[in-house]
């Protein structure tokens, strides 16, 4: 049984359609990365699947339960951690954990055992008498995750769990997610970090309420829209990337070009070879220190899909 099934989810706020027919399936034990720009409907989808927000249309099944029919049972089976690590700053670590144990109906010895377990697992025992507000970002995040997992949920929704966390804590969190997913726990994670997206076993990309990509990182890289037939990609390393970009874009065979650090990722007709590209660039006054063929990375994929979708939207608006 899949952990999460979204069938044609629709959510309208008045006239505005925030989520427009979104469908996907998340299998048990997957780390599902849900990506998209801010305001594209990510949080709305999470709210619908966690039973906070009613669906305008469609169906959401979480752990085999229909969220519209029995949101209470869904809430009992899932854990949720918001981007703000919603902890109570004036409560200690232990008091925060105890509160979540109580709210999920754990009592007495059961509660004590779960709290002890959670503190062990997240290594927060030494801080148990410290106020949550006095913890650093990484520790807050461990505590928040501990609170969200207090009742042993099989499915966890993490809304930008690594926003504002240092790289080491970020890496450690992801290691833990994979460890837990190995034990059959499913993760629904939103993020803006591409390196995190690369680590997900399943990705979906939402843009203005519509799902425009869904698959493993590898299948997404091979989407024909991203790498259309008759094109290939090069990375061009050069000095003055901004000027180089402007000039490279004037070349007739160039399909698209974007700056990545000190280099340009360029998509062009595959009739152009590496050496031809070199001489064409020379003609417009760009000296390439290095040119090498490139597989599209996920950022390329999302940027490309976003451009295409934007062009579609503008086209439909123009014709309307």
């Amino acid at each position, binding site marked *: 049984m899949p952990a999460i099934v979204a069938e044609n989810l629709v959510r309208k706020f008045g006239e505005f359609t925030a989520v427009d027919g979104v469908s996907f399936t998340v299998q048990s034990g997957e780390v599902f990365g849900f990506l998209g720009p801010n305001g594209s409907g990510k949080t709305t989808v999470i709210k619908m699947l*966690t*039973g*906070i*927000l*009613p669906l305008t249309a469609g169906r959401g099944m979480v752990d085999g339960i229909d969220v519209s029919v029995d*949101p*209470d*049972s869904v*809430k*009992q*089976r*899932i854990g*949720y951690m*918001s981007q*703000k690590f*919603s*902890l*109570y*700053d*004036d*409560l200690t670590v232990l*008091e925060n954990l*105890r*509160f*979540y144990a*109580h*709210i*999920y*109906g*754990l*009592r007495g010895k*059961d509660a004590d055992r*779960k709290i002890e*377990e959670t503190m*062990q*697992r*997240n*290594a927060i025992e030494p801080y148990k008498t410290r106020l949550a507000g006095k913890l650093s970002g990484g520790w807050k995040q*461990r505590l928040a995750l501990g609170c969200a*997992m207090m*009742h*042993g*949920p*099989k499915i966890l*929704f993490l809304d930008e769990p690594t926003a504002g966390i240092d790289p080491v804590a970020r*890496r*450690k*969190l992801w*290691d*833990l997610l994979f*460890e*837990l997913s190995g*034990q*059959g*726990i499913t993760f629904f994670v939103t993020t803006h970090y591409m390196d995190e997206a690369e680590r997900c076993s399943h990705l979906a990309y939402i843009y203005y309420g519509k799902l425009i990509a869904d698959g493993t990182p590898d299948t997404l890289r091979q989407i024909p829209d991203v790498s259309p037939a008759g094109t290939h990609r090069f990375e061009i390393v050069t000095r003055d990337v901004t000027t180089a970009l402007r000039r490279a874009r004037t070349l007739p065979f160039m399909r698209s070009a974007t700056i990545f650090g000190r280099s340009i990722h360029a998509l062009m007709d595959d009739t152009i070879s590496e050496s031809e590209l070199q001489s064409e660039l020379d003609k417009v006054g760009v000296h390439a220190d290095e040119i090498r063929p490139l597989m599209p990375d996920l950022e390329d994929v999302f940027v490309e899909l976003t451009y295409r979708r934007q062009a579609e939207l503008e086209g439909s608006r123009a014709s309307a």
Partner: protein
Amino acid sequence: MTQSTFVETPRESLVGSQSDAARKASGAAPSVAWSNNPFRGFRAIFYKESIHLRRDSMAIMFALLVPIVEMIILGAAIDTNVRQVRTVVYDESGLMEHARDVEGSQSSRALLDRFRSSDTFKIYKYVNSDDELTHEMVAGRAKVGLKIPYDFDRQLLRGQSAQVMVLVDGSDSSVAGQTLNVASAIGLDESLRRMLPEGKQPAIDIRPKIMFNPDSRSPNFFLPGLMTVLLLFVTTMLTAFSIVREKERGTLEQLFVTPVRPLGLMMGKIMPYFGLAMIEMLMILAFMRFAFQVPMHGNVLLLLLLAMCYMFTHLSLGMLISSKANSQNEAMQRSMGIMLPSIFLSGYIFPLDNMPWIFYLMSFFVPATYMMQISRGIILRAAGFQDLWINAAALLVMGLGALTLAARNFKKMIV
């Protein structure tokens, strides 16, 4: 990076405990009774909220320190009874007959002695012209100016009406009213004495007695009302803040993803503040009785019982505010919208009977109006349940209305 794990505990034990947890996950709901409980989550919220309250020094100060300070100000410093009003006198009557250093005539001095002994007036200065008299009044040094004309004695001797001018500063209406009354009474009394034969008593002798507050002590009047107003802060404002703070921090959203029910959330939030309000009230009552010597004529238990209705109404209003407001600022403003009418339209300071009909009508929608009746009724008049139940009923109706609206707003948020 190799095998960097999130945890420092040994891998085996970690895996063991987790799979254990995963196995139990589907049966995480502890019992059927628990999952059908409409107050689900109450205990957890109550536990957490009590800790918040204990650590919130502002709330404690609001509940326990502010009342004491306010009681001291209103109970000890303010006396609405008018005494020793600064009075300036221009006595023209003696000027023609005596040397300048002897003020007034014999009969004018007798009259002024009556004024002096009334305890209402305090003559602090004699002046020698109308200008000076007016100037003392304008400068605010005198609240009352007495002018006895030059023919005062002559008129009295002829058996004609002798005039005395009494100027009263109207910028303080309670002082003006009371001094005028006393001045008229002195005039009337003095006239009667001159008209009646020696040893004869007036035909009608009015013997007033002020019931319930025989000495007209201000604390007796103010403190029972002040208690009503003070209870507002803890009940309305602090409860409203407690939910709005969670909205601001984003923890409310987190709560909605847990199986907590609207009633459990609301009651868990209300009860600690209800407890605090009870402690505050007991403290105010003790202060009132023992520090300010306000008598307790009625039944304290009845007062506490009826006060619970009042607290319930305002806790519900606090909930209603917090279900609408999105920031502490907004909650503060909305709370003020409740507090100001409670102070001005409840009979606490201004008597309701004198108000224009529109404000009089509005006072019926102010919960504090009913509590004012209850607290003054029980404390000062020893009123019983049969006299006051209607007030409690009005409070309960308003409280239930507010709570229903609040619950509806929260349902919209929680599903």
